[in-house]
């Protein structure tokens, strides 16, 4: 037979349990607006009934229930959804970070409307046309000066903006990497706390929520994968590397590299290189090491090719004051000596020759078959030999086109004097750009015919890896352009002669006396034909800006590629955001707090509480009867 007071105990348990359940409801309601909070649910379970089936069992029929108790407070959460959200978050922040920077780049170029490089180029071209029309007037010369200065300034400005953007991306990269370290540290601390409280049988729901929140933030920065296989140890991986394992973690460290213009690479504290495949970190690395440098190189290429094409024609012309062999834009050479010798491995001793462009001595006829055959060898950026053959029935433009399509990093064109010119393109990075690597001709095309190389065959080949290779060319010094200093777009200024004296702008053409290929003898003309040549080189004449034939081709390709990439990042980022919203909604439907549900629960728990209290009150009445009425 049970205790007299056993009913009271059941009532008390009911009150306590439902009070606690109400508290949880209150906790839920208070956190209704907390995005990372997962709804908690009190799991009630009946107390073990009496009596156990044992020998000491009293002879009472039926088991008597012993009321309710809280089995656990669980959080309602779907880990599968969490994992999907983490994946999507990685994608989303990758694209949105990319979109940020591409937008900025796009704004830098300010296309297609407004003042931009293209309109400035157009303005420069127009001013040259006007100069050609009125070569004797100083006013039009001043306009050319101003337009060219404006073009140079904008070029420098774009270079500066892109470089600043690169610095900014690096700063952000460093701070994001530090953030990863910080989050990892927090997760580690939470791991310790969670393990401890689970050891004593608790459900550390709120700590778990916090950890999940941190994991989601982490997944935005870097592509993580989470392993929950071991209940005691949550493991967070980045690629193959462990970021956090239980109470241990790895640090991300910076390794500043000279080759990458002083920008750091990310390494693990165990010395391995960090491989990132997603998240804003990857976006930032790509932007810093690819997207922006690519554009800087393009602008560099635009600048150096414009400078070179203008200078090459300008040098052959005459100013109104009779000055000739003047450069229009200033040039800065990578090499310190006139032979273009540079120190590639930076050991203090020159070890190679850096030449950007070389033009032949001979004027060639572009319509006649060349009548000779042979093979020209170039080397591409991977140091592989590229062979371009030419045959007797080829015309010069045909051979040049073959060179241009060979992908050798060397392009060829006929300059304003119908001389064959070879020019280096922008390469993989700024250090390897604008340098002719290797030229060899087994026959006479570049030798006797074009007048570039002194001799055929390997002995006569030009190899940028050797010293003093400038002597392999028979071209005049003024027909050889040395490789410009790094980032030519950061330095596009008029020479002081042109800046000070607009009369020195060479609008008139000279004569080639002595067959030197040098038009440095005045023919007394003060015409505008040189200005017309300049104008046409900036517009429709194929003078090869990298692999593009004209400036327009080159620039339009640059903008359209930028536009396409920006568009891709924009649409990807909006798709991922949509997806994220959907997933968040889905997750909210599981773990989010529904006020209606909580209110219903509240009513329910309140009523249950009331009922339990009522039970106690009934038992109280019963006891009152027994104690006060019986025997009184």
């Amino acid at each position, binding site marked *: 037979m049970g205790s007299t007071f056993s009913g009271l105990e059941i009532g008390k348990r009911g009150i306590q349990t439902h009070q606690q359940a109400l508290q949880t409801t209150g906790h839920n309601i208070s956190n*209704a*607006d907390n995005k990372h909070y997962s709804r908690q649910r009190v799991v009630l379970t009946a107390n073990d009934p009496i009596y156990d089936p044992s020998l000491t069992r009293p002879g009472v029929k039926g088991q008597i229930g012993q009321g309710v108790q809280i089995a656990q407070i669980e959080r309602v959460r779907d880990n599968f959804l969490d994992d999907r959200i983490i994946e999507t978050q990685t994608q989303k922040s990758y694209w949105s970070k990319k979109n940020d920077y*591409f*937008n900025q780049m*796009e*704004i830098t*170029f300010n296309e*297609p*409307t407004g003042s931009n490089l*293209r*309109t400035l180029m*157009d*303005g420069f*071209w*127009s001013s040259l046309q*006007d100069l*050609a*029309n*009125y*070569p*004797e007037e100083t006013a039009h010369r001043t306009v050319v000066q101003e337009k060219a200065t404006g073009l140079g300034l904008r070029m420098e400005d774009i270079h500066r903006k892109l470089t600043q953007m690169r610095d900014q991306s690096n700063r952000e990269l460093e701070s994001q990497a530090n953030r990863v370290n910080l989050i990892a540290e927090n997760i580690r601390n939470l791991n310790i706390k969670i393990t401890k409280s689970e050891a004593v049988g608790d459900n550390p729901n709120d700590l778990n929520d916090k950890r999940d929140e941190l994991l989601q933030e982490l997944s935005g920065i870097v592509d993580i994968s989470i392993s929950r296989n071991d209940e005691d140890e949550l493991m967070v991986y980045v690629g193959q590397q462990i970021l956090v394992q239980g109470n241990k973690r790895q640090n991300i460290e910076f390794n500043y590299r000279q080759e990458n213009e002083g920008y750091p690479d990310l390494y693990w504290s165990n010395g391995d290189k960090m491989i990132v495949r997603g998240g804003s970190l990857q976006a930032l690395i790509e932007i810093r090491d690819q997207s922006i440098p690519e554009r800087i190189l393009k602008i560099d290429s635009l600048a150096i090719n414009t400078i070179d094409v203008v200078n090459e024609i300008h040098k052959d012309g005459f100013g109104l004051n009779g000055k000739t062999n003047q450069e229009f834009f200033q040039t800065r050479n990578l090499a310190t000596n006139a032979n273009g010798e540079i120190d590639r491995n930076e050991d203090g001793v020159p070890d190679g020759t850096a030449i950007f462009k070389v033009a032949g001595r001979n004027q060639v006829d572009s319509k006649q078959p060349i009548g000779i055959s042979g093979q020209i060898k170039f080397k591409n950026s991977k140091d592989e030999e590229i062979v371009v053959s030419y045959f007797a029935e080829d015309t010069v433009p045909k051979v040049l086109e073959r060179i241009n399509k060979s992908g050798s990093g060397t392009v060829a064109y006929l300059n304003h004097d119908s001389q064959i010119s070879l020019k280096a393109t922008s390469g993989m990075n700024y250090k390897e750009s604008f340098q002719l690597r290797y030229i060899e001709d087994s026959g006479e095309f570049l030798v006797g015919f074009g007048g570039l190389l002194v001799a055929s065959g390997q002995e006569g080949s030009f190899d940028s890896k050797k010293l003093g290779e400038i002597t392999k060319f028979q071209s005049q010094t003024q027909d050889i352009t040395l490789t410009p200093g790094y980032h030519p777009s950061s330095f596009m200024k008029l020479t002081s002669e042109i800046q000070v004296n607009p009369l020195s702008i060479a609008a*008139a053409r000279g004569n*080639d006396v*002595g*067959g030197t290929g040098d038009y440095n003898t005045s*023919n*007394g*003309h*003060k*015409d*505008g*034909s040189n200005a*017309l040549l300049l104008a*046409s080189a900036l*517009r*429709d*004449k194929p003078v090869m800006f990298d692999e593009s034939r004209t400036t*327009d081709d080159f*620039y*339009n390709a640059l*903008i*359209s590629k*930028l*536009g*396409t*990439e*920006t*568009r891709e990042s924009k649409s990807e980022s909006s798709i991922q955001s949509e997806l994220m*919203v959907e997933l*968040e*909604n889905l997750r*909210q*439907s599981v773990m989010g*707090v*529904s*006020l*209606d549900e909580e*209110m*219903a629960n509240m*009513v329910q728990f309140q009523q249950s509480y009331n009922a339990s209290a009522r039970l106690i009150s009934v038992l109280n009445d019963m006891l009152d009867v027994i104690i006060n009425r019986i025997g009184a």
Partner: protein
Amino acid sequence: MMQNNSLIRNLNRQQLDLDETQNQLSSGLKIRKPSDEPGIATNQMYFRSRLNEINQFQENVTDGIQRLNMVDSTLGKVGDILQRIRVLTVQASNGIYQGDKGFELEEAIGREIDEHLKAIIDLANARDATGRPMFGGSVVERLPFEITTGYPMNRNGINIENRILGVTYKGDTVDQLREIEKGEYVAVSVPGNKVFWGTNTSITTTGNNPDYISKADQSFKIDGVEIKINVGDSLDDIIDKINQSPIEAKAYKLAQNNIALSTTTPHQLWLEDVGTGTVLKDLGILDSESFENGGVISPKAVVNGQSIFDIIIQLRNDLTKGDQEKIGGKDLGDIDLAIENILRYRSTVGARTNRLEEHDQKLGYDKMYTTELLAQNEGIDFPETIMNLKWLETIHNYALNVGSKIIKPSLMDFLR
């Protein structure tokens, strides 16, 4: 919370769309960044550059037409004067001024012609609106025709007053070019040594070069056209090459193995060896001692050919001398040739003006077409965009309306 999120998201999205549409409406532009529509943006950039180009070409064309018009009207005036000279010449030659007074009258005509000569020289040295001489080729710093004066003797052996004895061309043969379309150039000037020329020019060498063989690949220019000579070319080869070149001159080999060059239209022969070339000097056409540009004709070579000025000076001298026969014969004939040459260049100039005017029209069409393409490419369709805007507004209103309804009720509202 879910409904709330969705509502806010949808409202935000609509607001973005509204903003975009409003931007389009206020700017009239469909796209503002290349990424909005990379293909269209590239087209736009091309169209804009092209428009800039067309504007420049139109300016060039307008400028060219003005210059050519000035050249034309100047040549017209020269023609008028030449006609007057012709009338005077005919009068002087037909013998009506015979007798005692004859000489006086011829002398008077001579004076009038002298004034006409000065007028023609003034016209030949005329400057255009920008102060640039029109007939000097590219030479702008000095007048193209230089006068030498002196005191010629009349038939009585008395020195008469200061008169023009000769006119030399100090300009060059360079055409002033205007680019009227990518890579398409039109000359908007005519060099004075072509227009103001009366008779065909010929140069005959006195040298005897039966075995002349070119020792190197070299070239020379006749009237600015380059003729390339290869190693081993003989005199005959050279003559052949000259005759096959697109120049208004022919070369002949004469009996003494010497060479003669003569123009097929009246103009001055403009000869120069290119670079180290020495062909013309070797053949005795150019003076081997002189290195001046354009070359100086060898003093040993015989040059025939008169400029309009030479013809008029000759005529005046003949009048002063009273040489009836020459006045009515050669002089009159030469005047006719001069008039013909002026007319020829007027028609050339007219044809060029025509071409420019036609091209101007084409540029006008091009401009219209490109502007239209640009507008189609970047301009918005206003009715459509306004419809879109209205549509978005309506949706936005609905969303707000519905939102206010679904957000409001909760169990809270019914628990009291």
